[in-house]
């Protein structure tokens, strides 16, 4: 099993969510986050004083899938979240040790 974590542009979330549903993903977790990558931040002016916004708003999306499905899900996210402008985000995968569905006690791939 793999935990797929993606940092994407906030306004792409709807499209990515719909695309993941259509490839059979059953659930995702999202968090509003801030950060910077190559896009960096930008300088603004407040009452004549300059200030720097280093961290720009992004959405972090997490989904656990079976090993066999991982590559497909990663490429689905990459294709739907791509605007080809700087700041589109990143995707990475992490091996997952155990998954338990709390309501039924199922574990492993059955719990995904």
């Amino acid at each position, binding site marked *: 099993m793999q935990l797929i974590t993606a940092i994407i*542009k906030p306004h792409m979330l709807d499209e990515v969510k719909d695309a993941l549903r259509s490839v059979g993903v059953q659930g995702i977790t999202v968090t509003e986050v801030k950060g910077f990558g190559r896009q960096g931040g930008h300088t*603004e002016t407040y009452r004549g*004083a*300059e200030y720097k*916004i280093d961290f720009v708003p992004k959405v972090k999306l997490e989904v656990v899938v079976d090993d066999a499905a991982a590559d497909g899900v990663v490429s689905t996210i990459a294709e739907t979240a791509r605007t080809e402008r700087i700041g589109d985000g990143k995707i990475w995968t992490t091996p997952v040790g155990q998954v338990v569905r709390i309501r039924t006690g199922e574990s492993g791939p059955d719990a995904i």
Partner: protein
Amino acid sequence: MRRKLLLGAGLGGLALVALAGPAHAQEATDIPLDDTQMILDNIFLLIAAVLVIFMQAGFAMLEAGLTSAKNVGSILMKNMVDFCLGALMFGLIGYHIAYSGENLFGFSWLWGGYDAAPTTDYSIMLPVDFLFQVAFAATAATIVSGALAGRAKFSGYLIYTALITAFIYPIVVNWQWGGGWLAEMGFQDFAGSTIVHSVGGWAALMGAIIIGPRIGKYSAEGKPRAIPGHNIVIAMLGVFILFVGWFGFNPGSQLAADIEVPRIAVNTAMAAAGGGVAALFTSWIVFRRPDVSMVGNGILAGLVSITAGAYLMDGWTSTIAGLIGGIIVVFSVVGLERLKVDDPVGAVSVHGVCGAWGTLAVGLFANANAPFLDEGIDGLFFGGGLDLFVDQLVGVVAVFAFVVVTTGILFSAIKAIGMLRVDPEHEIEGLDVTEFGVPGYGPDALATITRPTAS
């Protein structure tokens, strides 16, 4: 309205007096009016003017609450310039077009008019009247900002707000309260369902059509999607501030502290209540859930619906006018959304559509036989036949046509010079940071002030 006609004549006279010099001014001050009544009238209208100015806070809060958190600073900025720039333009040009027909440009009335005293049959002093009228002009202008929320470029908005307060709104006012052709025809609009609210509402309609929907408002298949307001608390505070402000708008339009004022105030309150209740149950039935922001829109719809008839209608017909307004507003909001007109706050439905309804309602419900009216005209349901209703319809259609054409040209011109809408990337990131350099809520802990440029 009847009194506003007198006002038009009075102001025209005053403008001439101001031009002609002190000899004539002396004539104007020589007036057999009861001093106490005159002072009461003027102080009452001054307080009413302040209440109408306070409505700007209501519009600001309503529009801020019903739009995205990333655009609050932008919408508040537009509300501020609606009053500030609007007052300057209306004072410089609009007021003269609306009322005097003389001195079309310049503040000449200001130095000629501060000590201007009432004319024989009209007790309101010029500065008091000006303040009241300027508050109305700002109301007409500010209606549009909500309909364009989230995508209108600030520079283009400045052009719009300057021109509506300088020309478009004043020309419509002149047709009615300035004694123009609508007034001569017999059109009745006590406090401005059509003259003020529909003008703003139809301008908002043209703006929303020409600027197009917000990014993400419609799915690829064209289905409307909800973009919920970010703060329902602020939005509903705005509704109640507007409600309170309306007690300046309608009772103030009597332009006198007389025995009709309490009745006008009660009509206003009952129409608001009717609008709220009707929108509550309409939304409950149509959406299967009572909708908080729609009840807020319903209260305002009720208020707009009684603005034309607050003087000429009974308490119970006022309530009915408000109830029907509250039903209309729900269907209007849903209908406009299906037509791909993206109006984030319902400005077109509340002010344009319900403004038209309120004006037509006078043609149905005006009651000259009521004990409070010793003169006037009957509506269709009170034995007056269709005459008044037809006059009302002509007025509604004429103002619609005039505003749609003028603001259609105006917004198209602003679009042609590229000042109507922000870039898509800026719209997505939010107008607060991209147009004004600072988020509405913040700058937060993750942003750092680095290098002050001013000491």
